[in-house]
C-alpha cells in the first residue's frame, strides 16, 4: 500500500472535529508506515502541503502519530531509523510551512544525531523556521548546544535572540562571553536574554554585572533583571556558595529603596535570615 492509501485510516473532520476515529485502524496504519520505511515516509511527507493550499489533515495526523508511536522505552533502533529518514526530507524543495511542520515532528522523536540536519534552520528568519529548529534542538538535550554556538555569529534579529535563549536553556558555560555581550545590548529583550543566560549558568563572577544592570533598568527590564538576580542568588545558595548569595541579597536590600520595592527587601531579608 502506498502512503495515500494508508492514511485513509485516519479521520477527516466530521461536524468540524475528529469524532469518528478508529483506534485500531490508526495504530495499524502507523505500523504500515514504519514497515514501509524510507519510501513510504517520503510519500507521506509529500502529501503535506502549505496551510490553505489543500487538505492534508490525514497526512499530518498520520505523520505525527508515527513520530509519537515510534518513541518510548525500548524503541531506540526504530526511532532512530524513522527520525533519520524524516530529517532527510528537510533538504528537499518544500514550502517553509511544511519544513516547519517536519521540524516540529523531529522535536518529538529525533535524537541529537539529527541535529546537523536541523541546525541550518537556526539562522533562517523566514516563517519562524529558526524558532521551530531551536525548539527541536532544545528538546533533544544539552548535546545539541554546539549547533547554537556555531549559529550564533551568523545570526541576527529574532533568530539571534532565540539562539541566545537556546544557549541559556542548555546552561552553556562556554557561552559566558555571549551572555555578557548580550547583557549590554541596546535591545531590552536581548539584554534580558543575556542576563538570564548568566543566571542559568549560575555565574558568581557575573553577579556584579547582573546587579548593576538590574539597577540601571527601568520598568519591565528592572522587574525581570532583578528577578534574575534573585534566582542567581538562589542557585548559588543551593550550590553552597552562601557568601556570594548573601552578597546579592544584601545588595538588593540596600538598593531597592522605593516603597514599591519593599517586597524585594523583604524577600532578600527572608533569604538572608535563612543563610545565617
Amino acid at each position: 500500500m502506498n502512503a495515500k492509501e494508508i492514511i485513509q485510516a485516519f479521520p477527516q473532520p466530521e461536524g468540524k472535529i475528529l469524532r469518528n476515529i478508529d483506534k485500531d485502524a490508526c495504530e495499524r496504519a502507523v505500523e504500515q508506515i514504519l514497515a514501509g520505511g524510507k519510501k513510504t515516509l517520503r510519500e507521506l511527507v509529500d502529501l503535506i502541503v502549505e496551510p490553505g493550499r489543500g487538505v492534508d489533515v490525514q497526512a499530518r495526523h498520520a505523520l505525527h502519530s508515527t513520530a509519537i508511536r515510534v518513541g518510548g522505552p525500548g524503541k531506540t533502533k526504530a526511532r532512530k531509523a524513522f527520525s533519520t529518514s524524516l530529517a532527510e526530507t528537510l533538504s528537499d524543495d518544500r514550502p517553509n510551512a511544511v519544513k516547519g511542520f517536519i521540524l516540529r515532528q523531529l522535536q518529538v522523536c529525533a535524537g541529537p544525531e539529527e541535529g546537523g540536519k536541523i541546525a541550518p534552520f537556526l539562522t533562517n528568519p523566514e516563517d519562524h523556521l529558526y524558532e521551530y529548529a531551536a525548539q527541536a534542538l532544545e528538546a533533544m538535550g544539552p548535546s545539541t548546544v554546539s549547533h547554537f554556538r556555531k549559529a550564533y555569529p551568523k545570526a541576527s534579529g529574532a533568530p539571534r535572540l532565540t539562539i541566545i535563549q537556546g544557549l541559556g536553556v542548555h546552561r552553556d558555560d562556554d557561552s559566558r562571553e555571549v551572555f555578557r555581550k548580550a547583557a549590554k545590548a541596546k535591545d531590552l529583550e536581548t539584554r534580558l536574554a543575556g542576563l538570564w543566560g548568566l543566571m542559568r549558568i549560575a555565574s558568581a563572577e557575573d553577579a556584579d554585572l547582573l546587579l548593576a544592570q538590574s539597577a540601571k533598568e527601568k520598568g519591565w527590564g528592572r522587574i525581570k533583571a532583578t528577578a534574575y538576580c534573585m534566582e542567581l542568588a538562589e542557585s548559588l545558595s543551593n550550590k553552597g556558595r552562601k557568601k556570594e548569595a548573601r552578597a546579592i541579597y544584601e545588595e538588593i536590600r540596600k538598593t531597592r529603596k522605593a516603597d514599591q520595592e519593599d517586597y524585594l527587601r523583604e524577600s532578600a531579608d527572608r533569604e538572608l535570615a535563612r543563610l545565617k
Partner: protein
Amino acid sequence: MKKIPCATTRRSFLTKSATGATAATILPRHVLGAPHVPPSEKFGTALIGCGGRGPGTYSGLCKGLEVELVGACDVDLNRAQRFSNARSKGKAEVYQDFRKLLERKDLDLVAIATPPHWHASISIACAEAGMDVLCEKPMTRFVAEGRAVVNAFKRYGRIFQIGTFGRFGRSRDKGYVLKHKIMSSGLLKDCQAVRMKKGGLKVKQWSGTPGIPPQTVPDQLDWDMYCGPSPWKPYESRRVTGTHRGYWDYEGGGMCDMGQHHYDPEQWTYAKDHTSPVEITPYAPPSHPEVTGMWAWVELKYADGFKFVMESGEWGPAYDRQPVRDVSMDDLSKEDQEKIKSMPDPEPLLSFGEAVKQRKQAGGHPEAAHRAACILHLANLAIRLGRKLNYDPDKEVFLNDEEANRFLNPPMSAPWRV
C-alpha cells in the same frame, strides 16, 4: 494615567503585615471594616485577558476587598476597552501588552484570564513585580511551568489563588473532611480506592478543528503577542475566543477546561495536594498534532495505591480494569478509627480576599493548584503518547521515557521563558 494616592502605603501594608510587623499601625480602614473607605485605601487592581471568563475572574478577585480598577489588558484592544468602560467608566487605562501594565506603581492585585498558555509567564511576572494573583484555571499549559509559578510566589511572598473554588465547600463538609483525615493520616496502607469521574470533561465540545486555512489577522489583535510563549502558527479565528481550548498550543481540550474544577477539590479531599500520580494508563487513539480529540479513559495511580479514573463517556470503551470504590472508616482497624476520630479538623481554607488581608496562603495555593493541573497534564500526555507512563512526583519527570519527558517542559518561544 490614573494614579491612586498613597499606593506605597498600601504596598507597605501588603508586605509588612505578611511578617506581622506593626500591622495595627498601618492597617487600612477597610480592613478594620470601616463603612467609608477613602480611595487611598483601596487596592489597585487589573484584569489581564478581558474576554470570556475575564469579567467573572475579576469579580472573584474583588470579593471582600475594596478595590479600584486601574488597568485592563488584552491582546485584543477592543475587549480591554469594553471592560474598562463597563467596570470603571473608561477610567482604567487600557493595555495590549501586560509588561507595560505591570510597570504601574499603583497596582496591587491582578486577575489573569488569558488562555492558559499565558497563565504561568504572566503569573510569575506579577509575583516578580510584587503583586498578588487570582488566575483562571487551568493553572498552566505544561508541568514545568507550574513548578516555576510555585517557586516564584514562594520567592516573593505573594498570594496566588487558582480560579476554582470547590475545595472550599468540601473543607466545610463533614463527610469530605472525614475522608481527608483518613487519607492524610497515613494510616491507610495499600489503598484500594478508585474514584471515577465519568463524563463532564467536554471532550467533543472542546475538540479542535484541524485544517482551517490561515486568515487575515484582525486589526485590533496583536497575534504575535497572543502566540507568545507557544509556537507561532498562522492566525485562524478558532485559535482565539474560547475555541482556543481545542488546540494543544494553548490549552488541553475539555480535560484542562473542566478538569481543574473537578480534581482540585478531589485532590484536597484525598490529601494529594503535595504529590502526583506515579502511573498513568490511557486508552486513546492517536492524537492529531494541532487539535485535541477523542479518548476513552485514563487511570492515574498514586504511590499509596489510590486511583483517579477519568472516563470520557463520549468515545470508546468504558473503563473496566477495577470496580469503583471510595475510602471509608471500614478500611481501618478499630484502633486506627479511634485515632481518626481524635484528629483535629483541618485549618479552614482562606479565600483570596482573606489571604490578601492576612498575608497567609490561600486555599487554592500555588502548590495545590500545580498538583491539580498536573493530574490533567499527565492524563493528556498519556492520551497523546498512547502508552503507560511512570512518573516521579518529587523530581516531576517520567521514568525511562526520554521522549515523554520532552512534553513536560517543552521549549518556549523567545523572549518568553520560565
